[in-house]
């Protein structure tokens, strides 16, 4: 297959399971029907954060319960007392 723009030969590559043709001359890319949508979907999945590995929490829990990371957690001063109080 030849590039419709510069007529140089095109080579087939596989990107994330999608076959694309790229021109060896102008580097332009040819997508088959549906391939643009497939790539867009893959990009959206890539951009989404990984689902939280945090354990479950009740509906009344704090919005951020379970999402505190290592090291960055801020422990309110009075919580230190609460840990030791009836």
């Amino acid at each position, binding site marked *: 297959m030849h590039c419709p723009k510069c007529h140089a030969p095109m080579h087939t590559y596989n990107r994330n399971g999608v076959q694309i043709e790229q021109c060896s001359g102008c580097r332009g890319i040819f997508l088959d029907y549906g391939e643009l949508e497939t790539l867009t979907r893959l990009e959206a999945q890539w951009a989404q954060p990984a689902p939280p590995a945090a354990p479950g*929490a*009740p509906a009344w829990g*704090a919005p951020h319960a379970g999402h505190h990371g290592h090291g960055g957690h801020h422990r*309110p001063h009075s919580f230190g007392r*609460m840990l030791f109080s009836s």
Partner: protein
Amino acid sequence: MRHDRRAGVGFSRASSRPIVLVHTVIHCPRTLTAMPADLHEHARAAAHPAARPCPGCVTDTLADRPDATVVRHHRTVVKAHAPGTDPAALRARVAVAAALPDILLPPLDPAPVPLGGRLVTHWPLGRPVDPDDPDAAPWEDAATLTARLHRTPPPPGLPAMRGPGKAALAVARLAADAPGHPAVPALLGAWRALPPWARDEEPAPPGAVTALCHGDLHLGQLVRHPAPDGPWRLIDVDDLGVGVPAWDLARPASWYACGLLPAEEWQRFLRAYRAARGPAVPAEGDPWPTLDVPARALTVQTAARSVTKAALAGRPLDEAEEALVDACGRMVAPGGGPV
């Protein structure tokens, strides 16, 4: 109103010099109880039973609260229990500690003795968790000891665990001592949304898992014995008894749900409890269907205590206390029922 000292005692690892760990709580005057005048002398005599002269060791007051006065002389701790404590119930609870020395700190003497109108028990000195280093909290030990307690068949005649009763008491004190505080409607709404058993109005529902429970588990209820480096043991049997064992997991569950305890620490506690085959929650899967009611009750209890203290001291709520009150507000749907 006055300040008084709540304290634990232990030995600093470096010097084995006794250290006393103190923080301040506020009590309403009508809740104050007098320390038995001769409790210090009693502690001294208990520490030197052979009538040898005291070599000059120091007597400390470790706690002087409405529900208990605790003093220590040398390596002996004596506790004067709350006025009105049922002697048979206390004897049964202390007997459990004596029978389970691998789980609970064993008493020096299994029999409570009357002193100045109070019942007094005798305990060896242990080293508590360092309140200044809560990141070093022994979550796995706490969970494993709790699971082992829950797996122990309760002796016949042991009274009920007093967790729901303490929650009800905290809410009653809130209503009496801080009725006008703006947090009160949210707390009372969350309280009313709890089932009657969690408000101490009915026994545990038929079919609920029940077990031998501690009843008041938090990080102040662990000591190393013998001090300073012996194994961890649970202390304070005043609320111990038969009840819903999820209650003992509900404080860390509540702290985690309110965003105060990091998920990692909650998971360490829960994993260790399950690894020790504790019966309070299913061995795998979501524990929250079982934890929800006790964790809500402990959240209301802790919020009620915090709001009462803040109101009596005339100070605003701090960040952690606000987190508890906010969680109570989320427990009730706009229509008034439970979420």
